[in-house]
């Protein structure tokens, strides 16, 4: 048993953090038994990412007509070729790192992903993408159900949310998922140092082991505390991670840095959740302005993913890693009067990693107004889905995580894009 004493609390008042030395973890056992080290990182762009500004149909005259102030000039887009339907496409000018990864064949872009009767509500839309169930988006998440099907006992670090809340995607019936936004702060403080701090931690663990069956709300809180105690020390090791590249100083990049640290330390996590917000660009989207809102968002994503990709590559973990991006909806085709875009329908998903067959999947929408245009919906205001997002999930579950997609998703979703 080791004790670390360091100042924890501001304001000149000292409290102490307590650590225990690491026992042999299930992850180590798994490693010994030669099990897969594959992991999945889910990236959620919250607010509804404007896919037409991420992947730009720069030869479509309707794109320029319907976005008089927001269209990105054709000369500045980062051209990445044409999709199978012959639509020329380019990335937003700030996505230089992603273009390199695309050119290296390690980035797949799945166009027009969505589902029938797309919800334009942030909250319902997010719930639908999280549960994989548009008709009843309550209850457990698609990855939560994947966790539910793992053989027991499931190590409490099998999944890791880097945000403060547990996203519905990871909500599971039987597996508690820790939220660890900051590995440094993931510690147990005590008013007293030395041995007393150890007694305090042991007592807190003992009290929280009480799980009264007739008081499930109390048991829930205690189970959460137990999960915290079971993960503290391994996470503490991750806090000391020294990456092989400099990550940008923003929340997404720091979260991915922590994820890389967890992978390098072999903590055994298989599913990570990272998230970045600000995509609800109703006003002042500034798509083509140097330091505009949208270019800044793209810069954040690009810088973070590029650093993560390079770090994993240097650490020889790229082939074990798949990053999958989604957003709750894309945005209307027409810009509004506030130089922004309102809530729309189908968007794009990105998949990045050493095992990804890069390229453009699916076909871009034709932005021409008209009831006869099958790629649009809602009187041509929004993009209609072509690839059901659940077929992408099915591909990930079957071909990456080695799970049973039909059981997890409640139905078969064949014909997903073959990026794995």
């Amino acid at each position: 048993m080791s004790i670390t004493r360091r100042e924890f609390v501001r304001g000149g008042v000292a409290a102490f953090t307590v650590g225990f030395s690491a026992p042999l973890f299930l992850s180590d056992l798994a490693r010994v038994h030669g099990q897969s080290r594959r992991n999945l990182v889910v990236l959620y762009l919250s607010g509804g990412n404007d896919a037409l500004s991420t992947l730009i149909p720069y030869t479509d005259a309707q794109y320029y007509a319907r976005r008089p102030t927001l269209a990105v000039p054709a000369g500045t887009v980062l051209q990445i070729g044409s999709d199978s339907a012959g639509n020329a496409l380019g990335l937003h000018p700030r996505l230089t790192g992603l273009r390199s990864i695309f050119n290296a064949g390690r980035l797949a872009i799945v166009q027009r992903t969505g589902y029938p009767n797309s919800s334009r509500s942030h909250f319902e839309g997010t719930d639908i993408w999280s549960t994989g169930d548009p008709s009843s988006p309550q209850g457990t998440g698609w990855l939560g159900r994947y966790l539910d099907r793992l053989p027991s006992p499931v190590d409490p670090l099998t999944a890791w949310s880097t945000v403060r809340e547990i996203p519905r995607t990871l909500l599971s019936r039987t597996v508690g998922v820790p939220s660890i936004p900051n590995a440094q702060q993931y510690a147990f403080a005590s008013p007293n140092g030395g041995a007393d701090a150890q007694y305090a931690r042991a007592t807190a663990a003992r009290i929280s082991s009480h799980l009264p069956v007739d008081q499930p709300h109390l048991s829930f809180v205690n189970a959460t505390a137990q999960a915290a105690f079971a993960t503290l020390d391994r996470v503490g090791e991750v806090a000391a991670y020294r990456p092989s590249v400099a990550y940008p100083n923003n929340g997404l990049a720091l979260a991915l840095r922590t994820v890389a640290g967890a992978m390098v330390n072999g903590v055994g996590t298989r599913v990570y959740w990272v998230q970045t917000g600000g995509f609800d660009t109703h006003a002042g989207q500034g798509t083509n302005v140097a330091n505009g809102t949208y270019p800044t968002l793209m810069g954040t994503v690009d810088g973070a993913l590029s650093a993560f990709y390079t770090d994993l590559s240097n650490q020889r973990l790229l082939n074990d890693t798949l990053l999958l991006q989604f957003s709750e909806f894309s945005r209307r085709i027409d810009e509004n009067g506030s130089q922004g875009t309102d809530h729309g329908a189908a968007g794009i998903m990105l998949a990045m990693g050493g095992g990804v067959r890069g390229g453009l999947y699916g076909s871009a929408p034709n932005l021409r107004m008209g009831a006869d245009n099958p790629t649009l919906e809602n009187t041509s205001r929004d993009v209609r889905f072509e690839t059901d997002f659940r077929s992408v999930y099915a591909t990930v579950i079957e071909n990456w995580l080695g799970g049973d997609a039909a059981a997890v998703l409640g139905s078969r979703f064949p014909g997903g894009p073959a990026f794995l």
Partner: protein
Amino acid sequence: MARQREEDLEHLLRRAGFGATDAEVSAYARLGFLSFPTAAAHLTNYGVQPDDVDDHIGRAGYAGVTAQAAFLPASNINDARQRWLFRMVHTRRPLQEKMTLFWHNHFATAYSKIAGAVGAPEAARMLAAKPSEDPGRVKGQLELLREHALGNFRDLLIAVAQDPAMLYWLDGRTNVRARPQENFARELMELFTMGVDTFAEADVYAGARVFTGWNLARPGAGPAQHYEFSYNAAQHDTAAKEFTFPIYRDGGRVIPARAPAAGIEDGRDLINAVVRHPLTGPRLALKLYQYFINEVDAPDTALVNEIAGIYYARNYEIEPMVRRLLLSPQFRDSSNHYKRYSWPVEYVVRAVKEVGWTGFSVGDTLTPLVNMGQQLLEPPDVNGWELGRGWFSTGGMLARMNFGAQLATNQKFNLRDAFRGQALTPEELVSAALDRLTSQEYSAGSRAALADYVLAGAPWTGSDAQLSTKGSGVVHLILGSAEYQLV
């Protein structure tokens, strides 16, 4: 001396307020509070109490605030947060602050987006200035919510729709005739009133057009210059707007074409319609039920229906709904006690009130609150915070435990003095600590674990040194227990 437990009264003060100190419970009891209806009436009729809590900021005997130089709650967002937390700790009108918190979550508006548009000082002013202290008589959104805390829901909704912070937050300021802006109209229906899946996309378009021209002006000069609501007739879409649900009492679904000068009536008509909508009352009633009665078990539908009925019968007045909830048998039913997961601010304020604040600054709660997942005036999105179990991630739980450690450390010597003479045995120390904190009853096993902690390391002598170490230690462990996370 052990606290005389007044469980009903303490429950009332936790739910309709933020908990109570020993002294407050005694004071309320002296006021005749042992008659529960008197107590509830005292809380709902808060208007008779002077609104003087801010006068005590910086005074001896109260929790402190932490300011860089001057304390500027109308221009510095952290000072605004501290002022609100100070009010929660020391107000004589606890239900007003409790309802203000409820509305802050309901009309969840985040500082950072506004600050990005107008700069930090102006954004803090827009959210938290008091007219009496502002050269431009600005009433920040927080003051607006306080003013209407138990007022009329329709009036509150109109005020919110014209609130500059809301006009920035949901982009109404840029909603113009040529290209309507859908953000506010959608959330008005989905989040503020009727609820998701109760309206069609066509209603969103029509609603956006209704609020065209509900923009901002910036009158005044110098320090008095400020943003305020302005109806811009030239930017209003004057054509008729058709909805899929009734707008008027006669069932009419079309807001008629109006002259530009009269176009502001469109917005009033739509707000009246969504306030009157048959799903708005039940939705608000359920939210209030879960806030005041029980969010853990299935709702008592009879009571929720009764509250919804009061909403319509009393013309959308909020006070009768809340008063009925507080006076309902369900409120006092002990099976509903400790059946709501505390929000982080409730947890923190209650802990400060029950543990003590001498030498403690509410500024020291700001970072812990971020770690617990509830930064005031910075909700995660317009849907507000994820309540209930949503607060209890492992990181959030550790943040609560660690705040308990911080507070107990800060109050170590006050706790030592309080426990002196009450702790001849470890069990007595545990009892004294549990008595000070109005926690749900502890199981015998948990009490034994706490007593074992007191004994760990050395035999118990009750010396000052031991009282200081183990007193703060036991308080920390109680604050970090599951029982204490519920209100």
